[in-house]
């Protein structure tokens, strides 16, 4: 089932990337850089082969991950012009981790 997840996730990422490649202007094209490609593929496989409860839990986690994605993009937007691509990308990933994992901890671990 992992292979199926990989195939579905990779395929949807490519589909949304192609839409983004064809889209103009750039700010509109950027929407597709944060499209729910992996999420749609993974939730579909979970629903088919596992359970509705698990898919629902996945979706709850994804709300937090989405906020992390926005934080990541804000940092990427500020960091890439200043730090160039590689370090700007590293800063963006760190921002995702801090926001998403920090919120997860605050909501589901620390609050208990």
């Amino acid at each position, binding site marked *: 089932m992992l292979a199926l997840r990989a195939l579905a996730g990779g395929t949807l990422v490519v589909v949304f990337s192609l839409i983004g490649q064809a889209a103009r202007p750039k700010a509109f094209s950027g929407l597709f850089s944060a499209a729910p490609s992996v999420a749609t593929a993974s939730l579909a496989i979970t629903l088919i082969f596992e359970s509705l409860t698990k898919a629902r839990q996945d979706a709850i986690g994804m709300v937090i991950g989405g906020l992390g994605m926005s934080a990541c993009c*804000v940092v990427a937007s500020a960091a890439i012009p200043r730090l160039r691509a590689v370090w700007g990308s590293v800063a963006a990933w760190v921002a995702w981790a801090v926001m998403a994992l920090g919120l997860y901890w605050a909501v589901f671990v620390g609050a208990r």
Partner: protein
Amino acid sequence: MPVKGGPAPASGGNRREVDVRPELRLEDLRGIKVRDYVVRFAFGAVISVAAALLAQASSARFGGVFLAFPAILPASLTLIQEEEGTRDADRDAVGAVLGGLGLSVFGVAAEGLFGRLPSPLVLVVALAAWTVAALGLYFLLTLFRPDDCDKHQD
């Protein structure tokens, strides 16, 4: 939806029109490099598997956080910066902020509707919710920061 006004007056003092209308240029797909898309496929495949393994190792909720991991964004921005310049990479990131907020809307819609609607329909509605949220936020961006969405400056 052309928006009047722009950042720099054209010659003669006339302000030129800012063009923020979204469009799909299918001809732009002719020049794509297959290697770039193989890399994106690999990133998407790896994060899909990683999210599933994390869900098994901890909880589905924790694995779900990684369904919104920015797997391909830094790679995309790097490619855009190298090939089209820093401004285009920056504009792409601004759009991705809006798409990221849409991801949370997708999650809220899916979580709220699972069990109330047939599951395949929930995924369709959640995708529609992402689309509406992302397009709505883009529309707001065109109103408040039209220069960021100007095709002439891309």
